[in-house]
């Protein structure tokens, strides 16, 4: 059963179906049904996934399908999933139906001070196409195919931000597109150089691992890939597009943008930068660690100073991406597994934050924090879920982000103690910006404009419910996810053949 191809085909067919349907309501329902179908298929696939196969090189990518695409250049339609990719595909499959349910009225201009009514069908069709591409980009085992999806993802997101966003949507959309394209071009050069220098006659990733020996070319190719991924998962200097894009995009699109699209960057670092160019990665590790730590602290500090809710949440995710990058480049199994789990948890916690902020903006109109106050009195359920999402954002133990952040920090501490300590200060800053926002919007006397704010309706409960459940479940029982991720990360790091840090062998003894 060609799982991955069906997983990609169903949303695309769904998108076509959605655009052909007559009424808007029906279009939304079809979109929801299709995304739920994809979710069901993904769960079935996950059940059949056998984590123990992760070790050996041949069976690393399960559900693999390889077809000739452009024989002359050895480009294949190669799809396959290992632990890391599976988890991320599951994340996207879970997030998309929730986003569809959440953006039920986003496109029809019915919210307070919402942008004018746009074609609802196109919005949901774009969402489904985006889902297909998200699954594609994580499933691609052919570097060229990965690059194609890497670039193709931008188009639906560009349109979603561009035509359905807030006031400065066109500025934000163009900035997002230009930033990513700039990165993408560098990567294209690197991909082609990889093919030519590697001269294995194929783009298939398993064959290309470890094929570039000479350190200087490795360094250059690494830079080509790394800058593209650093722009995508915004690392510190390349991050200014995210707050604009996330603030202007409709809440649903912002969730997918921050929740899944940006993860392609960090996933790319872990999969392509580390495994294809081990020497260069080791060479550049100090630089990346500095960028990541700066990103953590800088993102947190700027987040504290924000006045708009969605911009604040966007800056927090810049801080979180700092953690993920730190975990990837600490090159220990704990940190790597922590980083991958972090990608999933961040998807849920920031997704919940964005969606609830979206509900608030849908009701009240403005995104500024100062326009709210004392919502907790008026809409206790919304305030409660917003608090849980926020607490997961500041990685409170017992909620999902803590496990991954703990593993990232402990993994980084094993190899680089000082950056880990500075990064841990991010934990304190996280408490400041989340609680500061929660206090100004939710607690205190109820502001006039917020008096008649309705609480979550049934649809919105079905949006927030699964997210909160996932946050708490992954918080208490991360082992099922980690069992899937660990072998894949071990295999990835074995390709980097870096000597394990001192504690590893003690761990054997200590456990």
């Amino acid at each position, binding site marked *: 059963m060609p799982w991955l191809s069906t997983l990609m085909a169903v949303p695309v067919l769904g998108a076509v179906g959605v655009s052909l349907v007559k009424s808007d309501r029906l279009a939304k329902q079809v979109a929801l049904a299709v995304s739920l179908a994809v979710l069901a298929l993904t769960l079935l696939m996950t059940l059949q996934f056998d984590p123990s196969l992760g070790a050996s090189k041949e069976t690393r990518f399960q559900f693999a399908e390889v077809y000739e695409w452009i024989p002359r250049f050895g480009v294949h339609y190669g799809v396959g999933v290992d632990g890391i990719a599976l988890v991320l595909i599951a994340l996207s499959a879970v997030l998309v139906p929730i986003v569809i349910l959440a953006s039920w009225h986003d496109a029809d201009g019915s919210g307070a001070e919402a942008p004018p009514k746009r074609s609802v069908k196109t919005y949901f069709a774009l969402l489904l196409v985006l889902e297909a591409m998200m699954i594609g980009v994580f499933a691609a085992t052919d570097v060229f195919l990965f690059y194609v999806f890497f670039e193709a993802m931008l188009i639906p997101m560009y349109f979603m931000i561009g035509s359905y966003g807030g006031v400065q949507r066109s500025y934000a959309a163009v*900035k997002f597109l230009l930033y990513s394209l700039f990165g993408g071009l560098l990567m294209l050069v690197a991909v082609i150089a990889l093919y030519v220098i590697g001269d294995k006659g194929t783009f298939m990733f398993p064959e290309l691992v470890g094929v570039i020996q000479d350190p200087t070319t490795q360094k250059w190719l690494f830079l080509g890939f790394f800058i593209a991924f650093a722009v995508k998962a915004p690392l510190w*200097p390349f*991050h*200014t597009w995210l707050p604009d894009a996330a603030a202007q995009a409709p809440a649903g699109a912002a969730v997918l943008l921050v929740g899944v699209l940006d993860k392609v960057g960090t996933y790319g670092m872990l999969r392509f930068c580390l495994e294809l160019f081990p020497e260069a990665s080791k060479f550049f590790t100090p630089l990346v660690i500095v960028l990541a730590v700066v990103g953590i602290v*800088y993102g947190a*500090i*700027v987040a*504290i*100073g*924000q006045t708009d809710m969605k911009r604040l949440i966007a800056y927090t995710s810049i801080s979180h991406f700092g953690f993920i990058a730190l975990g990837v480049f600490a090159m220990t199994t*704990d940190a790597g597994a922590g980083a991958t789990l972090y990608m999933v948890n961040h998807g849920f916690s920031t997704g919940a934050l964005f969606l609830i902020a979206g509900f608030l903006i849908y009701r009240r109109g403005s995104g500024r924090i100062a326009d709210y106050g*004392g919502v*907790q*009195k008026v809409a206790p359920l919304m305030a*409660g879920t917003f608090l849980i999402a926020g*607490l997961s954002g*500041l990685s*409170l*133990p*017992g909620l999902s982000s*803590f*496990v991954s952040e*703990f*593993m990232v*920090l*402990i993994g980084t*501490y*094993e190899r680089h*103690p000082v950056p*880990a*300590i500075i990064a*841990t*200060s991010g*934990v*304190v800053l996280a*408490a*400041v910006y989340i*609680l*500061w926002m929660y*206090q100004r919007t*939710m*607690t*205190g*006397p*109820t502001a006039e404009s917020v008096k008649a704010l309705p609480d979550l309706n049934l649809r919105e409960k079905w949006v927030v419910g699964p997210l909160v459940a996932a946050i708490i479940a992954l918080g208490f*029982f*991360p*082992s099922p996810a*980690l*069992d899937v991720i*660990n072998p894949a990360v071990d295999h990835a790091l074995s390709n980097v053949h870096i000597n394990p*840090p*001192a*504690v590893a062998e*003690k*761990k*054997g*003894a*200590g*456990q």
Partner: protein
Amino acid sequence: MESPAEIIQHSGGVIGVSWLMIALPLLGAAILLLGGRRTDRWGHRLAIGMSVTAFLIAVISFFELLGLPEDERRRAIALYRFIPGMADMGVLIDPLSISFALLITGVGSLIHIYSIGYMAHDPDRRRFFSYLNLFVAAMLLLVLADNYVGLFIGWEGVGLASYLLIGFWQFKPSAATAAKKAFIVNRVGDFGLLIAIFTVWTGFGSVAFDKLSGTAVGEALKTGQVSQGSLTAIGLLLLLGACGKSAQLPLQSWLLDAMEGPTPVSALIHAATMVTAGVYLVVRSGGFFEAAPTAQLVVTIVGVVTLLAGAIIGCAKDDIKKGLAGSTMSQIGYMMLAAGLGPVGYAFAIAHLITHGFFKANMFLGAGSVMHAMNDEVDMRRYGGLYPVMKVTAITFIIGYLAIIGFPLLSGYFTKDGIIEAAMEHSSVLGWLAVLGAGITGFYMSRMIFMTFFGGRRWADDAHPHESPSVMTVPLIVLSVGSVFLGAFLILGNRLMLFLAPAVGRPEELPAFHAFSGPGLATLVLVAAGAAFAWVRYGAAEVPLVAPRGSFLTAFARRDLYGDALNEALFMRPGQWLTRIAVFFDNRGIDGLVNGLAAAIGGTSGRLRRVQTGYVRSYALSILFGAAVVVGALLYVGNM
């Protein structure tokens, strides 16, 4: 069919299911939170049921543990794999954790019962009880966890519960700010604890307590597996975490603001249980502290300094709850001092912790019932002469007062004197400072008694105090009984020390308790002097309604020893300043660069556009120039 007893026996006794202690309150909290309006009517009863059941399980486990031979009093129950390869969730039942569990569930249940009365007319009572249950569950997880990660989860869970409970009356901005402040200051402490856990993991490859006992650490030090420096670092970082949670000096500013919460909260969290978590951490990681004498010294110093600071603050506070909070800070200073003295001090620290839990909770609840009677008036200057009106509250409050100042034969006397003597042996400076602290305690506690229960009535005109309902006074009575006898029971014959020995080790020779030893006498004299001075100032004399200006010391104390001012100056203002700079840099700096680039490109293209003048002849000119350049290039290439 096996009888329930056999089932329990078969599954390793009640201890086998002791994780229920954590699960039941958690379940209660979840039901009440998710239940919503429907659970309003019977919500609080469920919460109390959960808490009392947990207490029963704790008691049964305690007796089961006593049943075991001395050296086997340690049962670890593994629950499930939390983080594969790193930390598994598990429950550790040993003398130390069971004594804490008993305190938490015992005092907790009493406070649950008390809260029925106190929160009777609050619309959100259901939410209050769910948060209380959440707190009990988190605290139990903290004390029962068998590794540092589990402890840390409980640690922050307690921080969350205190955030929710302090900020329970969210509509009050001061409560919301106090809650946020408490959480953030706790988070700074957690930062230290996190780093400590990392260092432990890197040093020992495991976070489980059984792998990190005193002997294991000593060995690791000897084999050079871990350096002395990192051990001291671990000690100091653990202390930082403890200070965050137990409001010791560097991170004490949040405790006094935490009084914004309802009184049962102050009683439960900020007197009996949460603030003692720091002491538990120091005692539980005894192995590290013994291997790092410098860290131990720092703990004692922090203890003494906080002890004195708390006392001084206590003297100047007119708000009854803030006064009690100051005294809590000071008493925990004592416990920290004891915990820093090594094995000999652990028993005294835990003993004082338990007795303090009882009489401080008793006094807080007493204060609560006084406030309840005086329709939520907190300023003692508006009290006075309440004894005849509220006899039961007054008597129980006075018993607690006598216990805390160390009145002979009451529980405070035994535990506090034990600490003072142990400190005296350790180093005379610490001892005498502790004695001074006891004296000041005598003064401010007497001041509080005289201002509240004796002297002229300074009530507000609409106040007509009446005795609180029995649901509030019964817990007071139970707690006061505990305050009287518990001290003697724990200390005499070193009963607690022997009981705790398997968990925390024991000193070479057991300290003998002799009633009127040198320091003991000195303490009594100082306490009496403090009480007399308080009687002169507040008992006999007329207490002015408005606080007099007072000397430099009182102003110093009223401003909480400028703790908040210091935090503001060192962290808040530079932090805001840094944030503004960062936001400016982000908008202007990086974004400015990017937009500038775009504008530059736009500008140049605008100018280049003008080259197309429309005149054929200027185009011809450029063509000629082009031709000339080509010919030049050919020439250059040709004969190069």
